[in-house]
């Protein structure tokens, strides 16, 4: 495992796109939540107070939602990139010719996926704890951890997004097109299929929410004020549903990627 990870490090540590996306993630993820300090938006706002956003347990929801966007855009983009660019450069093929087995090559990318997810989750935990402790009066550790499994949920969200990104990266051979497909599917295509297709055909049956990007998103959903929670339950999956559906898609995408990659011509 270490050998394959250090190989990835050698390949990408000097890649400017990788460096840029990592910096974007590391800078924007902790700072985006501070939009909540905007007085015009949140002072005298009857629905959300600034204190809810930054204190325990609200910080886990808001920071999770912030991370939801950042992981999808920055890390997902990065995941597609580090796979599809090797197809464009034909270095994927050369790596195999040089001596990696296909399974080893696949594992090297899977390890990258896990490292990204772990890194993002640790960052989430650290930033969440710091912001929470600073903004909560008399904060205790048990208060900080009373968050409905937010940290493991966040990890699963990362893995779910990135396994879809990995699938796209291995499937679409042109790197530009791969990144575009990943973003377009998440932002446009899946919502269109759900709301214009599935919803119309099934009369709004709740299966319209059982899509991979939506399930991953609902692991860390947009925080909604308490009095909306009844309404929210109609559009959002429950945590339990999101965990189950995301896990199934994750296994499916990783399995499908491995199966096709070990069979096909390069």
């Amino acid at each position, binding site marked *: 495992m270490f*050998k394959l990870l*250090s*190989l990835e490090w*050698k*390949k990408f540590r*000097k*890649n*400017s796109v990788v460096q840029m996306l990592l910096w974007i993630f590391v800078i924007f993820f902790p700072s985006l939540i501070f939009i909540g300090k905007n007085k015009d938006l949140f002072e005298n706002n009857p629905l959300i107070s600034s204190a809810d956003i930054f204190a325990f347990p609200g910080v886990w929801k808001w920071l999770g939602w912030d991370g939801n966007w950042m992981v999808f855009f920055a890390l997902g983009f990065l995941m597609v990139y580090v796979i599809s660019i090797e197809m464009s*450069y*034909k*270095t994927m*093929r*050369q*790596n*195999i*010719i*040089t*001596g*990696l*087995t*296909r399974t080893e090559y696949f594992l090297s990318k899977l390890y990258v996926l896990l490292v990204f997810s772990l890194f993002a989750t640790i960052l989430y935990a650290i930033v969440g704890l710091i912001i929470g402790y600073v903004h909560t009066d008399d904060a205790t550790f048990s208060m900080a951890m009373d968050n409905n499994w937010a940290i493991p949920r966040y990890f699963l969200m990362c893995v779910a997004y990135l396994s879809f990104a990995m699938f796209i990266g291995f499937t679409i051979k042109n790197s530009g097109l791969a990144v575009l497909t990943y973003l377009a599917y998440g932002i446009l295509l899946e919502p269109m299929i759900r709301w214009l297709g599935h919803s119309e055909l099934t009369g709004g049956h709740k299966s319209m929410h059982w899509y991979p990007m939506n399930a991953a998103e609902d692991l860390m959903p947009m925080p909604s004020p308490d009095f909306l929670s009844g309404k929210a339950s109609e559009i959002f999956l429950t945590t339990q549903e999101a965990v189950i559906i995301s896990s199934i898609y994750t296994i499916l995408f990783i399995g499908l990627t491995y199966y096709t990659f070990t*069979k*096909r*011509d*390069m």
Partner: protein
Amino acid sequence: MAVLEINGLTKKYGKITALNNLNLSIESGNIYGILGPNGSGKTTTLGIILGVLAQDSGTFQWFGGQYGQYFRKEIGAILETPNFYPYLNASENLDIVRHIKGLPEQDFEEILEIINLKDRKASKFRTYSLGMKQRLAIGATLIGSPQVVIFDEPTNGLDPEGIAEVRNILKNVASSGKTVLMASHILDEVEKVCSHVAIIKKGHLLATGPVGSILSSDKMFQINTTDNLQLKSVLSDIGQIKQVNDGKGFIECSVDSAYEVAEFSKLLSEKGLIITHLVERSNSLEDEFLQITKSK
């Protein structure tokens, strides 16, 4: 000892058969040229034996199977174009190859010397000319001094200077005792570098053997007479004459090497033919290649 055994390899792309029941055995220490026109199945063959393409049927085995699925670590190979990370320099790119092969760290000075890239080792790959890229690719195949090296059209697209430079490197590699497998459509290249040749066309193996034996088996007469029509009918009656072609201003025939020119000209005079031009020359690989690929 056979380094590589290929048995009945077949590969189809839809309706096109790229490789048809190919059998080949590569012996240790030989310099093998795989010769064939573009699209004859050379790269497909190399792709299959390197594990990046899947064959439809047939088998191949490297090193008697002793390395299992890790056989590629014992081989240095390039397929088609040189493929490297454009934002890394020569040393960094070579280091990735070393890392994959599981070899200890090294500075690659010796290899960079051989491929004449010492001065540019710190420049990014993307700034290299095609010739430099090709040389780096050859250098990458030498890392860890593998038993077998494979080159695919190593001089393709290079300018004359680049070709000369790459050929010199290839000759040096070939004389170092390694087993070399080189695909090429350039006969001259194979003739100059290789000890053995396998000729393929449309996925069929047409001929294989030592370059010397293919070259010396036949020789060539170029002949012109006052009555070439009669000449042709006479030629068709001579058993030692294998093939007759119309050349530019003369008739060309490949002849059994034991057949003497004196005997030949005497026979023609007896038949009343007046010879205006007669040249004997050894058959080049190019003639051989054209004959073999034309006749089958």
